[in-house]
C-alpha cells in the first residue's frame, strides 16, 4: 500500500539546515495498523505529513497504492489527498460552524458527490462511530472524544486507502483515548490501512506494528501482539 525508499527531508531554519528525515525506508501492506513512535523532533510528524502529501520530500520515492507521489502541484495533491487519504488530527480540526453531519460530509463535497449521497454516507459513518443522534450538533456541543470520533467519521467518509492519524489521542484523557482506539481498531478489523503517530506506549501497543523513529531514521520496526482497547472501555 505504502512504499517509501530513501526518503530525505530537511528544513531551512534561518541560516541552518535541519535534516529531519535521513533516509527512511518503509513499507506498509494493506490492512496494517502501524504506530509511528518517537520523541518530539524525531521526524515522525514530518514523515506523516509527507505521507499525507501535505509536505514534499527532498529526495526518495513514495508510492501510494502503486501510484508514484512526486512533483505534485497543489491541485493534484488535493485530488490525491481526497481520493487516497483520510486525516485525523490531534486537535480534531472540525469546522466549527458546521454540524457534525456537515463536517463528515465535507470530503464527499470535494469529491463532487450528490447531496443526497453525501448525507446518506455521512450518516452511515456517524453511525459507525456511534454518533448518529448527534448529527445536527455543532462541534462546540460535543465532548473531546465525540469530536475525535466525528473527525474519524469524516476521515472515513471518502473511503480512503489509508487513514493517517496524527496523535489522535493527544488531546484526550486515557478513558476517551481508549474509546477512540477501540474505534480505530474496529475500522482496522474491517481491513482499512491505518497509520497512527503517537508518543504514548499504551496507544502504540494497541497497534499491530510499531515503528520507532529517532533523529530521522528508523531505529526499530517490530510486529507486536495487539492489545484490544475494548477491554478498557466501560
Amino acid at each position, binding site marked *: 500500500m505504502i512504499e517509501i525508499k530513501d526518503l530525505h527531508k530537511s528544513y531551512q531554519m534561518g541560516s541552518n539546515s535541519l535534516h529531519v528525515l535521513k533516509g527512511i525506508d518503509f513499507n506498509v501492506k494493506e490492512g496494517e495498523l502501524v504506530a509511528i513512535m518517537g520523541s518530539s523532533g524525531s521526524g515522525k510528524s514530518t514523515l506523516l505529513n509527507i505521507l499525507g502529501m501535505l509536505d514534499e520530500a527532498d529526495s526518495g520515492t513514495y508510492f501510494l497504492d502503486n501510484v508514484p507521489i512526486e512533483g505534485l502541484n497543489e491541485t493534484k495533491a488535493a485530488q490525491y489527498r481526497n481520493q487516497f487519504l483520510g486525516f485525523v488530527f490531534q486537535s480534531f*480540526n472540525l469546522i466549527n460552524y458546521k454540524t457534525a453531519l456537515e463536517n463528515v460530509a465535507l470530503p464527499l463535497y470535494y469529491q463532487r458527490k450528490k447531496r443526497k449521497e453525501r448525507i446518506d454516507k455521512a450518516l452511515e459513518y456517524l453511525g459507525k462511530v456511534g454518533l448518529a443522534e448527534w448529527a445536527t450538533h455543532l462541534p462546540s456541543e460535543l465532548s473531546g472524544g465525540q469530536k475525535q470520533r466525528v473527525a474519524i467519521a469524516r476521515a472515513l467518509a471518502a473511503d480512503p486507502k489509508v487513514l493517517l492519524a496524527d496523535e489522535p489521542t493527544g488531546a484526550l484523557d486515557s478513558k476517551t483515548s481508549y474509546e477512540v482506539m477501540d474505534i480505530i481498531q474496529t475500522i482496522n478489523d474491517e481491513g482499512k490501512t491505518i497509520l497512527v503517530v503517537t508518543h504514548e506506549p499504551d496507544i502504540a501497543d494497541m497497534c499491530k506494528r510499531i515503528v520507532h523513529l529517532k533523529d530521522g531514521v528508523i531505529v526499530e520496526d517490530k510486529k507486536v501482539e495487539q492489545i484490544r482497547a475494548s477491554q478498557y472501555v466501560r
Partner: protein
Amino acid sequence: MKFIFERDTWQEIYGAIRKNKIRTIITVIGVTWGVFLFVFLLGMAKGLDNSFRSQFNDFATNTMFLWGQQTSMPNEGFKRGRRMQLTLDDVEALKSKVTAIEYITPRNVTGQWGTPPGQFVKGSKSGAFKIFGDYPTIDKVSKKKIFDGGRFINEEDIKYERKVCVIGEDIYKQFYEKDEDPIGGYVKVNGIYFKVIGVYKPTQTGFEGNDSIFLPFTTFQKIFNQGKDISWMVITAKADRNIVDTEKTIKTLLKRMHNVHAEDTQAFGSFNLGEEVAKVNGFLSGMRLITYIVGIATLIAGVIAIGNVLLITVKERTREIGVRRALGATPAEVRGQIMLESIMLTFVAGLLGFIFGTLLLWGINTAIGNNDDIPILNPTVDFFAATGALLAIVLLGTLIGLIPAQKAVSIKPIEALREE
C-alpha cells in the same frame, strides 16, 4: 465556472457568511452606504436637472427674442437716440438672408411696456388685458396647452383676418360660469366682436401669463392700425446651428439695414434663451460630475472595506482553509469560494443600497410633490446608471476578492494546519 450555479457552493458560502455575522454586517453596511449615497446623489442631481428643464421646456431652447431700442451712437448723419422700429420687412429680409433660422415669428402686443391694455367685454362684465397678435408658428416656440375642444390660431385665421381669439384660463375663470363652454361664444375686444376658439392653460414661463388674449396677427394689425410695425420677433435657430452665433449674424444684418453704427450695442435688444440654458446646463453637468466622483469614490471605499475584512477573515480562517485542503479542496475551489463570498457580499450590499436609495428618493418625491419652491422634480435614477454601478461594484468586489483569495491559497496546507 460550473460551480457558481451549484446549490452546494452557495451553501458553503452561506455557511461561511452566517458564521461571521458581525464582519458580514459591517462589510455590507460599508457598501450599502456607498451605493445608497451614489443613488441618492444621482437622483437629486437628476431631480435638479428635471426641475430646471421643466422651467424651460415650454420654450424651444435654441430660441432668442429680438426687439428695437434706441441707438447709442450717431451714424451716417443720424443722431444718437433714434428709435428703432422693427417691421415685417425686417422679418422677411432675415428669413431670406439668414439660413440658420428655422422659425422667425413676428409678434405684436398691447398692454405691455407702456402700451395700453385691451378692453375685454363679455355680457355685463369687462376687464383690461394684454392682447397679442400672433402667427400659428409661435406655438412651436412657446408651447401652450389648449383645453379640450379648442384650438390655437391657424393659417386660415391669418389669411382671412378672422375675428377669433384665444383667451387665458384666468380670463375664462373670471368671465364664465362653471361648466360653461366658451368655445364658439362671442366676446368684445376693444369694441369689436370676436369668436372664442380656445382657452390656454397656464405655462410656467414667459410674460404671457394666464390672462392674455391672442388674436391672429393680421387681425391685430388691422384693429390697432399697426401697419407693418411689430413689437418684437421670436427666432428659433435650426437644431444644428448655434443660437449665439445666429444672434450676432442677425444683429449685424439689422444694423446694416437700419443704418446703425456697427458697434452700437443699444440699438437692438435681445434675450437669448440658448445662452441662459447653456449656463444652467453647464452648472448641471458640473453637478453631475461631482456626483459621479463622490459616488464612485464612496463605492470604492466600500469595496476596499470588503477586501480588508475578507483579508482579516482569511487570516482567521487559515486553519479552516487548511482543513478543507487536507480534505481535498483544490486551490481553485478555495479561491473560488473566497471570491464568491466577496462578490456575493458586494452584490447583496449594493442591491440593498440601491433599494434604500430608491426608497429615499421616492419618499422625497412624495414629500415635495409639486411644490415649486424646491427646485427638485421627479428625482429618479437612470436604470442604466444604476445597473452599471451595480455591475461595477460586483466587478470591483471580484477584483478585491482576488487579494484574500490569493492569500488563502498561498498558505500551504501544512502551515495552515500547524497554525494555532
